[in-house]
């Protein structure tokens, strides 16, 4: 068959003016046919060439359609839309309910994500502001990443590395175990505090509302206070400037001048009310000048246009030169990124919160797309109802384009209507959402937010409307008017594919929720190796004392702690009392420099360091597997040490009790070994741990009698308040601390349950709509079957079989998807539950059940119909 090239001809027909098309096309074909006799390929090539030669202004048609009644058309479209809503109320309701829930989810997630994204992102120089992170390689080859660096690193970097514009050393509030006290007259307040080098304000955009930005932090005995603190102490920021206050942190007390008042940005992780000169801190902790130490945080502002990798290399080389004894490596991470990318593996950034951000974005999109799919399915399924309308319009001369516009108008109108409902929903739900996520999100009139809303809504309208619009406008006029609608195989596949997609998503979400829930439960139920129930803890008030002997071992402070504990032990409802340093659940100082064998392998191994009083181990119920606990009966217990099993295993000691090791050059005899207990989150493996005696540790832990909790707490409160007049008794449950470790998992668990519920709800709505439609269309068939004696059950089976297949297919696809996702999520935990087959079965069963319930709701309608009524009307 000699046919000219299809695409060339298509192109010609597309661009050519109508009045010349026939002539040109005819001539070209004539030439083509003549040439074809000689050489088909050349004829084809020439044809294409000729077409292209005709692509010139003289023959190109006008592309602008001159539509003079666009406003009338829009009005017409809206009227038709409205009539359709009124006529098919259930479809309208399903669509509005689905889309508005979907949009509300997307809006909420958008608010949450943008809030997460902006955490710590308040500095104008964010793109050049890096935090120096430190990797320490342990003896066993594992790499530990931390933000603690050498105390004098900032100083050295500013001098030694040309790329560094400013280097700030900082000790942040979270580093300290106890807040400081500020005393003015008879006012005594607990305040969180931070130390920073004077160039702090050159790098961080913390607002200084009173005082001089440049010099406020220069004075050693000068501090800046927050606006709220100034308000509380002196009733105004102005009055605070220049005032002298007594400020106590750790065991120091001194008079400081208030040199400035600052205001912290809203969305930050570290909150403090006092900002003091770093020099003070370094002076007190002299050992931080040593290059083997690591505690304060270091931030560097690189010069603009610097090669970051090169700067990083230089910084790393510097530490290797200065501290060759440890296997330390430094690297840079953007300060603004640290919040979202705060998880490290093998010394490299390995995600963090960003994973939850991604997860929720995906979930929000999935939920919205399920709602969009509902719209698509319902509109294409109901196309038969609108055949006449489309046919008549086409016969009168409506072009495909204008029909497309009509259906898009319909979906746009619907999505805007849903957006309106969604915004009301968001407004109503926001307080609850804030409690759930622990955030303070408000619905501000922020142009970025509204732009996002407009974009999301328009996109939703477009996506959900595009398929029906294209599908409906493609019908052939003649066939449509005759009432014939041939459903092609492709269309069926498309609709079923969309339903299957919905099923897959719901299935994945349900099983995902089960996995998350199980893991969170597992974490809570895991035996930690200690008993965390009925234990409260609080900080002792450390009064300054000029006597240098006071804080030494056996000094006045220790006696004070002992007497306090003795009094507590006698109180009602108290079972036992102990004191300790640091947190049981959280941050433990790392420690190296432990010797137990020749060579320096041992020196490099990192230990965690718990400093505890005599009664810590029995109070927590930690099991001693070998040897004994510290005891008041023996003298010189501070020269002894207790280790955990992991430590012993790593050290490779056969008979540890009685063995003497060196800790920081001092001899320590091992007197006991405790069973491993999870003193950190279950994300991490139990690390080797030293338990040292510090009988003067200022944190008190009280184990209460489980049956008389309230009494016990009251008794402890009375004793505390007697001894610390004017200070409120603040305590925490160890249980709460422990749960706080998994706060983000808890939130994810709750949120994912809600989201999964929403997804299922929306899918159900869609399914309900679809089955209702099927039942309606097949009513005659059903009635005929009934007349012939079919039972309700067999009709039910008939109608559900279609969906059963789809559900099975969805599960077949869903299982591997979940397998991959869940495994990678669980792998982040060192101690985790495993995937069980019944999760999948349960998920599948839930979906089946929901499908059957949804379908049978419609079946009741069909079953109740009197066949005579339905069959009579023809």
């Amino acid at each position, binding site marked *: 068959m000699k046919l000219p090239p299809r695409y060339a001809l298509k192109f010609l027909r597309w661009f050519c003016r109508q009045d*010349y098309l*026939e*002539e*040109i*096309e005819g*001539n070209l*074909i*004539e030439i083509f046919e003549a040439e074809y006799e000689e050489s088909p390929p050349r004829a084809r090539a020439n044809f294409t060439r000729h077409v292209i*030669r005709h692509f010139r202004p*003289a023959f190109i048609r006008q592309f602008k359609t001159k539509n003079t009644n666009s406003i009338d058309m829009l009005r017409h479209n809206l009227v038709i839309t409205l009539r359709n809503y009124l006529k098919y109320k259930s479809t309208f309701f399903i669509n509005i309910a689905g889309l508005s829930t979907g949009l509300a989810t997307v809006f909420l997630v958008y608010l949450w994500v943008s809030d997460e994204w902006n955490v710590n992102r308040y500095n104008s120089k964010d793109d050049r502001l890096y935090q120096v992170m430190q990797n320490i390689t342990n003896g066993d080859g594992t790499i530990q990443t931390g933000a603690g660096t050498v105390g004098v690193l900032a100083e050295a970097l500013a001098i030694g590395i040309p790329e560094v514009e400013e280097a700030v050393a900082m000790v942040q509030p979270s580093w300290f175990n106890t807040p400081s006290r500020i005393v003015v007259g008879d006012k005594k307040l607990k305040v969180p505090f931070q130390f920073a080098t004077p160039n702090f304000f050159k790098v961080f955009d913390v607002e200084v509302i009173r005082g001089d930005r440049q010099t406020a932090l220069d004075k050693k005995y000068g501090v800046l206070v927050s606006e709220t603190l100034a308000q509380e102490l002196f009733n105004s920021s102005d009055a605070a400037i220049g005032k002298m206050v007594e400020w106590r942190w750790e065991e120091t007390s001194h008079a400081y001048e208030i040199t400035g008042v600052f205001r912290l940005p809203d969305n930050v992780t570290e909150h403090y009310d006092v900002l003091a000169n770093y020099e003070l801190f370094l002076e007190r902790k002299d050992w931080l000048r040593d290059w083997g130490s690591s505690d304060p945080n270091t931030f560097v502002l690189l010069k603009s246009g610097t090669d970051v990798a090169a700067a990083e290399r230089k910084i790393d080389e510097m530490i290797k030169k200065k501290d060759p004894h440890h296997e330390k490596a430094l690297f840079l991470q953007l300060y603004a990124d640290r919040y979202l990318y705060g998880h490290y593996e093998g010394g490299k950034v390995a995600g963090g919160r960003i994973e939850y951000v991604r997860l929720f974005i995906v979930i929000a999109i999935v939920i919205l797309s399920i709602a969009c799919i509902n719209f698509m399915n319902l509109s294409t399924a109901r196309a038969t109802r609108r055949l006449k309308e489309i046919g008549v319009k086409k016969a009168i001369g409506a072009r495909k384009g204008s029909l497309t516009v009509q259906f898009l108008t319909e979906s746009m109108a619907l999505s805007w209507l849903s957006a309106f409902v969604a915004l009301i929903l968001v407004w109503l739900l926001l307080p609850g959402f804030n409690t759930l996520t622990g955030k303070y999100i408000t619905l501000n009139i922020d142009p970025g937010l509204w732009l996002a809303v407009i974009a999301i809504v328009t996109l939703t309208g477009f996506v959900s409307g595009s398929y029906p619009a294209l599908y409906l406008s493609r019908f052939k006029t003649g066939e449509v008017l005759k009432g014939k609608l041939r459903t092609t195989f492709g269309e069926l596949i498309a609709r079923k594919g969309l339903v299957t997609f919905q099923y897959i998503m719901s299935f994945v979400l349900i099983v995902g929720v089960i996995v998350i829930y199980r893991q969170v439960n597992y974490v809570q139920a895991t035996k930690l190796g200690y008993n965390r129930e009925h234990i409260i803890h609080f900080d002792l008030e450390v009064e300054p004392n000029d006597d240098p002997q006071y804080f030494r071992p056996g000094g006045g402070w220790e006696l004070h702690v002992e007497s306090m504990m003795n009094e507590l032990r006698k109180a009602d409802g108290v079972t036992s009392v102990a004191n300790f340093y640091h947190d049981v659940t959280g941050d433990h100082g790392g420690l190296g420099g432990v010797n137990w064998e020749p060579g320096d392998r041992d020196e490099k191994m990192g230990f965690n360091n718990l400093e505890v009083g005599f009664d810590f181990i029995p109070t927590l119920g930690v099991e001693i597997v070998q040897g004994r606990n510290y005891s008041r009966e023996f003298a010189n217990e501070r020269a002894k040490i207790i280790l955990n099993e992991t430590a012993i295993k790593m050290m490779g000691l056969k008979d540890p009790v009685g063995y003497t090791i060196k800790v920081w050059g001092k001899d320590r005899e091992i007197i006991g070994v405790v069973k491993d207990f999870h003193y950190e989150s279950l994300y991490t493996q139990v690390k080797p741990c030293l338990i040292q005696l510090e009988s003067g540790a200022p944190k008190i832990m009280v184990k209460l009698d489980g049956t008389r909790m309230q009494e016990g707490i009251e008794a402890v409160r009375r004793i505390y308040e007697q001894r610390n007049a004017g200070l409120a008794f603040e305590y925490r449950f160890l249980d709460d601390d422990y749960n706080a470790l998994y706060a983000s998992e808890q939130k994810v668990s709750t949120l994912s349950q809600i989201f999964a519920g929403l997804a299922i709800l929306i899918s159900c709505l869609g399914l309900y709509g679809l089955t209702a439609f099927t039942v309606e269309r097949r009513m005659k068939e059903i009635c005929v079957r009934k007349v012939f004696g079919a039972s309700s059950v067999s009709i039910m089976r008939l109608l559900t079989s279609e969906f059963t297949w789809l559900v099975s297919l969805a599960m077949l696809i869903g299982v591997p998807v979940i397998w991959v996702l869940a495994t990678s999520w669980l792998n982040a935990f060192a101690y985790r539950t495993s995937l069980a087959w019944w999760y999948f079965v349960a998920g599948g069963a839930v979906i089946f059940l929901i499908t059957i319930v949804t379908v049978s709701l419609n079946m009741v309608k069909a079953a109740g119909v009197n066949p005579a009524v339905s069959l009579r009307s023809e």
Partner: protein
Amino acid sequence: MKEHSLGEFEELVLLMVAALHDQAYGVLILESLEEKLKKKFNISAVHVALKRLDDKGFVKSRYGGITSDRGGRRKKYYVITALGKKVLDNQYSLRTSIYMQIPKISFS
């Protein structure tokens, strides 16, 4: 008189339309020109020239009947108008009059 101007190729096409009288359509014009001038042309050039002649009112057109050739497309036949003929006459007389002025010199 801009609208009465006539390019060289346009003049050839117009002449050919006149010569082929009532049988002139795109491909035939093209082939006849190629034959006379012993030179290949692109059909698009003929189309453009015809369009311009039409716009200027030198030719008029009508459609022939549908045949099974040409993919069922009708031929568009062109005939010269009175105005077209006048322009050709003018052109011809102008050229002849100037030609006559050439002195009888031997060019050999």
